[in-house]
């Protein structure tokens, strides 16, 4: 979907086109394919074995944006998947049943390896069990990521994950790819990852400005594309973020708001933080409900689902496997509720938000569980208005425009009433215009 004409967008499209082209040519090139998940993905490791990654979640969301998801979901329901099963899973299974045609219209190759690194989502395990039935001869590598129940990453947990990488994951990669593991190769990629991560943090932090030069949710989902999927650890990825950063810097210098499908947002009326993924089937319509009223998202938890970098974590070439382990455990949905509340509180303060919105996803338990508790806690801690809407990832049957609009009308009017309330934060730097 063409939403902005900036160079970064064009570059991302090119990168994706090349990736899908490579995937469509594996029969000729002989490259091996690894299916894996976004949260806590081991993309650098996949490339360290010259394999190509495929992310079923991304294919599902792309299907949602291309209005194909309902057909795929029905296909999966026809063979017995219940109405309550995660719609990403059903969409992905339905797409495979219909020939595995990817978002670019090219057929995706079957997996040679299913890398299950489940992080904060227990459906992933069942998802790949089902893929194993579809592709019975495929190897599976399983990486168990401990949940941050105690709110911190224990050294023993890092060791536990690293041990699995050494004894389970890497040997499977070696077997499938026929290549020996080269830690220096991995380290090289991680060096590039850290560079891109540094840029990404700066880009999202630009929302401190007024007006915010970015929409950290609707724009944010594009900004996280390269780093959370097939490109982290590549020069291309670093170049993408350099370009994006220069565009954001330009908007800051010219006091411009984010770019929406209708051009620059002219007047910033409300600054919001949002918890939960967006709806993909009505993405533009959903976005317009906000930008049409001058509401901009200054921060979102969804853009941290593939990794949290705010607290200083970077992939490290000095301790490659350990940093992969910490990365996996640090993902947003692998954090406990108090950690998620603290993170949102920091965002609400740092980005001087007027309110918090929760978009609760009908078929996503890993995100939705606990949202009401978190919402209530933040409402009490910060005395800010909180709003709650419900949609789904890619099942259009759960998107009711009038229900959402009705709730948002009330929410925006609550914000209007409290326009005077601002949460101050003494960590703000001087260059922020208030």
């Amino acid at each position: 979907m063409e939403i902005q004409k900036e160079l970064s967008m064009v570059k991302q499209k090119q990168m994706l086109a090349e990736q899908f082209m490579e995937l469509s040519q594996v029969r000729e090139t002989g490259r091996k394919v690894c299916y894996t998940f976004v949260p806590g993905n081991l993309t650098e490791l996949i490339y360290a074995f010259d394999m190509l990654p495929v992310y079923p979640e991304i294919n599902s969301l792309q299907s949602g944006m291309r209005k194909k998801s309902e057909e795929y979901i029905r296909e999966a329901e026809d063979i017995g998947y219940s109405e309550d099963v995660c719609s990403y899973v059903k969409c992905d299974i339905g797409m495979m049943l219909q020939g595995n045609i990817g978002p670019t219209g090219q057929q995706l190759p079957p997996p040679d390896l299913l890398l299950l690194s489940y992080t904060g989502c227990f459906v992933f395990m069942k998802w790949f069990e089902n893929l194993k039935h579809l592709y019975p001869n495929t190897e599976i590598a399983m990486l168990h990521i401990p949940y941050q129940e105690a709110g911190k990453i224990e050294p023993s947990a890092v060791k536990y994950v690293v041990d699995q990488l050494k004894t389970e994951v890497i040997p499977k990669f070696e077997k499938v790819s026929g290549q020996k593991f080269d830690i220096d190769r991995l380290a090289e990629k991680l060096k590039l990852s850290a560079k891109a991560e540094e840029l990404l943090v700066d880009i999202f932090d630009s929302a401190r400005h007024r007006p915010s030069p970015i929409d950290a949710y609707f724009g944010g989902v594009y900004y996280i594309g390269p780093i959370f999927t097939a490109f982290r650890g590549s020069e291309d990825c670093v170049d993408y973020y350099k370009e994006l950063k220069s565009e954001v810097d330009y908007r800051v210098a010219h006091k411009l708001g984010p770019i929406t499908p209708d051009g620059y947002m002219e007047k910033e009326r409300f600054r919001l933080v949002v918890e939960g993924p967006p709806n993909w089937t009505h993405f533009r319509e959903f976005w317009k409900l906000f930008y049409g009223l001058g509401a901009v998202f200054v921060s979102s938890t969804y853009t941290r689902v593939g990794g949290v970098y705010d607290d200083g974590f970077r992939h490290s070439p000095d301790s490659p496997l350990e940093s992969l382990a910490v990365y996996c455990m640090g993902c947003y949905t692998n954090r406990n509720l108090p950690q998620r509340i603290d993170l949102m509180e920091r965002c609400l303060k740092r980005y001087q938000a007027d309110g918090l919105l929760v978009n609760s996803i009908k078929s996503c338990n890993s995100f939705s569980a606990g949202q009401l508790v978190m919402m209530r806690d933040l409402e009490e801690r910060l005395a800010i208005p909180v709003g709650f809407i419900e949609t789904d990832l890619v099942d259009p049957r759960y998107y009711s425009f009038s229900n959402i609009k009705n709730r948002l009308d009330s929410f925006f009017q609550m914000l209007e009433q409290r326009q005077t309330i601002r949460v101050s934060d003494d960590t703000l730097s001087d260059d922020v215009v208030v």
Partner: protein
Amino acid sequence: MKVFLGIDLGSTTSKAVIVDADGHIIGRGITNTRSDYAVAARIAQTEAEFSSRFTLLKRAVAVRSANGKNWEAIFDSLENRFHCLQFELRFDDLIAAMQANEASVADASLRSRMMAALPEVAVEVKETVRKRFFANEVSATSQFFRDLFNAAYMRALEWSHPELFDEMVALYDRSINPVENREMQFNFHDLVQQALPQLPQEYQSAIADIQACLKEIEAFDMTPADYVGTGYGRQLLPFQEKHIKSEILCHAMGAHACFPQTRTVLDIGGQDTKAIQVDGLGLVTSFQMNDRCAAGCGRYLGYIADEMNINVGELGPLALKAGYAANICSTCTVFAGAELREHLNLGEKKENILAGLHQAIVQRAFGLIARSGGVRNEFTLTGGVARNPAVRKYVTDMVHQNYGRDITINTDPDSIFMGALGASLFAARRK
């Protein structure tokens, strides 16, 4: 004096409230919502204007005459007669429409029997309703033209023409909707002049005082200085965006105005239930409302009343007579109807079933409250369903059980007008 108007266009009823510049209510109007929302809104507004004129008239008369008369009772009587005259004008319109619809009956012999029966039935209906108005039995906030006519018409048919019952009811069904969607013009002056001589003998001496103040009140300009519309149908009101406000904020504001210590509001309306948390200024901090399913709302009670063939207003008092609450699953209005019949077949008492149904509604609403953050002190119940005494009983029980006995529970007699009151206060604040 400036007046401000708030209109709450709900899924079942449309309400209007007029307040003065200090935010005090001077008039209320209500009608059933119909397919033409604008007509419903205008009728509610007109009724609120009439109600305001009566309020102002009563105040003026009380000031003028220090003769110790019971002006409350006199004005109750006067307003009842005024409403009865309004009923009769609408009634004439409906009977004329039913006569005009005679061609819809294909069988000539049936048609002529129906048309012969209609005037006779009409006289009976008019007389029955008039008696009810004059005996102060009609509540302007719960019985609308359609309900009053319907109840009396059915009874008259059963009594005098049971053989024509189905056909005559079908004729009414065909005629009522177009009549309801037409706005009827009423002249306040003319109706008051007709109503005054109908006052009971003991109030006749008050007429001179009323007449003396009437001119000034009739001349009073009731055009609102500002107005705000809210409710489920607010987007359909012929108002500009700046005159539209969310019902969540309006209910919170109305509840806050009546009970300033309110922190949690539960509004049970016709088709949605809202749990709202407010701060000390009456500003909403969060809310939850039902979607995808309207079980547990006013419509549920309406449906049950239809199933039991009783008036919706009778449900609560009947449920309070229960020995215990029968177990009713609270998940679906339609299935609740089936459950109701099942219990009746098993010989369960009506009262116990109704108690169970009321409890189920309240349990459902408390699910929403829990999602919105629970009950904080004080707790205010709003919406039409708040008038139901059995709902109030189970709400009180649930609050005490789940949130402690220290919670103060408020219900205003004007609970159904809370949204409209909040809207009028938003209008008044913009002055």
